């Protein structure tokens, strides 16, 4: 395990040595996959412990929901409107729906969700790694890169290193924020620069192409979704 974690630790500090070692490895894809799975499982386990501690220091959500509801019932505007049966029914429905959605959005501790993360985090990180590796390989080669696809995948697997920051979430209430995403970008840049032996400008372009493609995909998806929703609404209005 130490043989897998040590290079990740060095890769976190953007040292080119672990990336060059990965490039020279006889089976970089298998080693990369092992690295990703190991870090993802440890990160998820650490997160589970932190979430459990946070849950143990937070009142039950059902109790909080009841306190807020009682306080709303005591408010003058509610007393003014509670005579209307429609209002009472709709308010109750919206209140229940809101409490099913918002606590999760605002980071209320969810032990079941944190437990499931042990399964889905390795899966998500693996899929992201393969997709990114494939999408970055093409521009890297096009820009004169010398690395093979296996070397690209092996080196970009080390970009899982910033997930080491999330080990701090062993302590509840610690927030790492968007740091992991930005640092992953840096690790990917060093990975492509090293695996393809590219100068900085070309390595930067190869690093950013998958992000640009992803942005384009999201924009197209948003347009398509808006168009479908618009068409459905228009169809509904005309009937």
């Amino acid at each position: 395990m130490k043989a897998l974690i040590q290079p990740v630790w060095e890769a976190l500090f953007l040292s080119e040595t672990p990336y060059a070692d990965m490039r020279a490895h006889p089976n970089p894809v298998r080693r990369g996959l092992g690295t990703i799975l190991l870090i993802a499982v440890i990160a998820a386990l650490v997160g589970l412990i932190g979430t459990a501690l946070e849950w143990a220091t937070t009142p039950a959500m059902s109790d909080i929901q009841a306190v807020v509801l009682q306080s709303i019932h005591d408010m003058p505007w509610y007393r003014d409107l509670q005579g209307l049966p429609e209002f009472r029914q709709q308010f109750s429905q919206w209140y229940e729906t809101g409490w099913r959605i918002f606590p999760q959005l605002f980071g209320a501790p969810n032990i079941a969700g944190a437990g499931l993360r042990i399964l889905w985090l390795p899966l998500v990180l693996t899929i992201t790694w393969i997709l990114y590796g494939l999408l970055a390989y093409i521009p890297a080669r096009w820009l004169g890169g010398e690395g093979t696809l296996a070397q690209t995948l092996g080196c970009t697997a080390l970009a899982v290193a910033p997930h080491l920051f999330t080990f701090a979430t062993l302590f509840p209430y610690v927030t790492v924020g968007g740091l992991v995403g930005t640092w992953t970008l840096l690790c990917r840049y060093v990975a492509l620069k090293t695996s393809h032996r590219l100068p900085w400008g070309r390595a930067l372009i190869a690093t950013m192409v998958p992000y640009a493609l992803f942005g384009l995909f999201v924009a197209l998806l948003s347009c398509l979704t808006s168009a479908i929703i618009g068409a459905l609404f228009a169809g509904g209005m005309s009937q």
Partner: protein
Amino acid sequence: MKINELLQLAWDVLCFRTDAYAQHVARADTLKRGLTLLVLVTLVAGLLGFLINTVQNLRSIDPAVQRQEAQVAIREFTSAIATLQSYLDLPPGFMARIIRYMQSGIDIGLRINALPTPFPKPVGRFLENLGTFLSLPFNRIAGWLGYTLWVLLVAKLLGGRATVTQMLGATALYAVPHVLDILGMVRCLGGLLGLIGTLWGIAIYVKAVSIANDIDIGQAILATVTPAVVGILLSGLGLFTLVILVVIGG
């Protein structure tokens, strides 16, 4: 990496000793050293606040005292609004409604605070403080990293020669004077020391950019301020567009 070496580096950085910056940038572990200093300084700066909050939170808190403190805060808020009333043109009964809602909010907060938790309350309050304290370095790293990448890009366009590792390792030293933030809770003096720390940190940042990229101080200043200026201009443009859209929309 020895602690006395790091302390010596911190001192040399504060004194703007060019050799110390150059030797730091030339090392293979420049980023590891810079980041270690940044994390240590941030934790030291936040230590006093963490200890004070921990001691305060470990005392049992009387809800009546909390309510009284909240009432004082509401009174201060309403008196502040009252001084502005002639400029604000508030509708009649507006202030009474605001006070009523603020009191309801305080009631909800106090009642939630009184709800039982699986672990004893002081343990929860301690862990919450610890979490906030341990998050401080991550917040600082996130801000510094995001900005420095843009500065590196400008420096490269100006002919800079730093690698990402050298640039990050060098500019992380900007955090050293922020050790003064440890006295941030002291009234007046804390603010003044914070300002001194910020200005000193900016000066260290510029020198670090200059040495890491092998460019002169003028170019380093340009590289440092350009991302901020572009950000401000873009924000201004966005705001201007929004105002135009609102005006056109009527």
